[in-house]
């Protein structure tokens, strides 16, 4: 394979983990640090920048995460890392990465070490009507409101779980959104849960949650625990939502359905790691029920099972931005040590602080993830007509027929039914398919391997991929 370029460290993703890895690696003296990021500007999801056209007139008032993000981005730029935006890594062979930039140009880069910092995505939930315009993820709404300054709809139902759901609803309200109701599928946290959270973490985060709850209450926004979305109804777009009470496994309690008149439903049922890159790189995986699904196995220093490959941030396991920052620092330092840029002793010294911070943060995050873990009922909302594969428009009934016929792994289901073959490459449906297989075959989801990942990791234009060939060859016969 003709690799055009070489780098000491390639970081995939310019969110908090990727940027902090870049900063630490450069600080340690690693010569060539290249950050490949899909976004038009660095920052990932949580530190997303405004679109070109918007101007920031006062950074302190520009939005919740704006300032923190800007200082991180500035530091990463100042560090001398080569941050390439608009760049999609679509393939990996050993440690050579193929990428497309701006959907038109392509290239390959051979890395001595790699940090996978690919972040996470909102969990997709399949229920009747979920494909209607008006149903979107909480993350989509967050970007619309915070970055685009456009409200997602006129009458909004927030359906999700956990304090992020609560916090975001309160923030939305502050932007002027009409939140009609907030429903959290988890039961109200019990005293012992609160004690766990308090013992394990930052009490101020709990205080924030209490404040958000108080704000919603003050605004008379109904907030209901142990309640989940059941279905959405309407003509061409959402016109109303039906919710119901659920038990501890998030299974619907019969006779508790009620209808809410809304035009928008936001889904805040947690995040799943973008671990596809780690699978493409053959990193051994483990299943973490509460931490984002299939994740690369890592040691304390973010090292995966593959030599020279690290994973940091939500892409290695969902933990939030504070955790991602520390993980990124650890990965950057560990990669620098592996490259010989710093000695073991220097590395140990620099790792001590972030490792300590991370331990503290992660205890809290783990406790939180456990309390707000997704219940199996979340994957039991689809009726036979519900489209389980949005891209290929395949219904739940197709999936169940396959399973009944004995097709019980994700690759074969994809091959036989087209579920997972579309542009989203299974990101919206893989968890639901796995949960359905598990349910119908009396197995646990952890026993159902994720689908095999092959290039391209993301859809990339044929012309852009072919462009690499134009650069180097005149048209010749194939040998």
């Amino acid at each position, binding site marked *: 394979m003709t690799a055009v370029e070489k780098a000491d460290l390639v970081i995939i993703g310019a969110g908090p983990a990727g940027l902090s890895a870049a900063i630490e690696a450069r600080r340690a003296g690693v010569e060539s640090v290249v950050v490949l990021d899909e976004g038009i500007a660095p920052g990932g999801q949580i530190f997303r920048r405004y679109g070109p056209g918007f101007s920031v007139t006062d950074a302190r008032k520009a939005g919740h995460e704006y300032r923190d993000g800007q200082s991180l981005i500035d530091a990463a730029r100042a560090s001398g890392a080569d941050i390439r935006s608009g760049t999609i890594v679509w393939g990996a062979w050993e440690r050579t990465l193929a990428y497309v930039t701006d959907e038109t140009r392509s290239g390959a880069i051979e890395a001595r070490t790699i940090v996978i910092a690919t972040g996470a995505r909102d969990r997709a939930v399949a229920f009747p009507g979920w494909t209607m315009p008006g149903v979107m993820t909480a993350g*989509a709404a967050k*970007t619309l409101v915070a970055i685009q300054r456009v409200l997602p709809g006129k009458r909004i139902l927030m359906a999700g779980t956990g304090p992020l759901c609560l916090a975001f609803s309160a923030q939305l309200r502050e932007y002027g959104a009409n939140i009609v109701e907030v429903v959290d599928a988890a039961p109200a946290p019990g005293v012992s849960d609160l004690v766990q959270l308090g013992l394990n973490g930052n009490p101020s985060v709990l205080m924030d949650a209490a404040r958000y709850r108080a704000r919603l209450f003050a605004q008379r926004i109904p907030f209901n625990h142990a309640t989940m979305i059941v279905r959405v109804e309407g003509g061409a777009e959402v016109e109303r939502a039906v919710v119901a009470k659920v038990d501890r496994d998030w299974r619907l309690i019969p006779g508790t359905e009620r209808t809410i008149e809304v035009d928008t439903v936001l889904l805040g049922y947690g995040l799943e790691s973008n671990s596809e890159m780690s699978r493409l790189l053959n990193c051994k995986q483990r299943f973490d029920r509460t931490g984002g699904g299939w994740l690369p196995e890592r040691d304390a220093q973010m090292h995966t099972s593959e030599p020279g490959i690290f994973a940091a941030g939500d892409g290695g396991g969902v933990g939030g931005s504070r955790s991602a920052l520390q993980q990124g620092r650890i990965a950057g330092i560990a990669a620098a040590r592996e490259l010989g840029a710093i000695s073991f002793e220097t590395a140990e010294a620099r790792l001590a602080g972030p490792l300590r911070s991370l331990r503290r943060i992660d205890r809290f995050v783990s406790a939180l993830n456990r309390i707000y873990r997704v219940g199996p009922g979340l994957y039991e909302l689809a009726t036979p007509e519900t489209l389980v594969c949005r891209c290929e428009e395949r219904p739940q009934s197709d999936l169940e027929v396959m399973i009944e016929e004995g097709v019980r792994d994700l690759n074969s289901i994809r091959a036989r039914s087209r579920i997972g073959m579309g542009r989203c490459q299974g990101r919206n449906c893989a968890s639901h398919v796995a949960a359905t297989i598990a349910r119908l075959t009396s197995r646990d989801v952890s026993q159902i391997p994720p689908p095999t990942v092959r290039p391209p990791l993301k859809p990339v234009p044929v012309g852009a991929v072919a462009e690499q060939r134009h650069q180097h060859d005149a048209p010749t016969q194939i040998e």
Partner: protein
Amino acid sequence: MPIPPNEALRVTIKAGVERGKPIRFLFDGETIAAYEGETVAAALLAAGRRVLRTTPITGTGRGIFCGMGVCFDCLVVIDGEPSRRACMIFAREGMRVESQLGFGAAS
């Protein structure tokens, strides 16, 4: 007379950031008023246009779902190019956007 952007769903910004300059683009032949810096999806949402395409097999409407370029549901035709993600592309003055019917028309 200039068409004022639809303000019903636009956040009233009190401080900290300013929208880009007003621009106009076409959606299915109709003029949509927007601001520079808004994605096609956001601008259309603000204008009350939530159905961005109809699917090839069932012909049902789709709009924004993930908002981050992963789900490929928000596909529209932009200046004749089909299957463009509206949530990833910024609206430009004079852009010609059309809702995508199925796969979009052949060129």
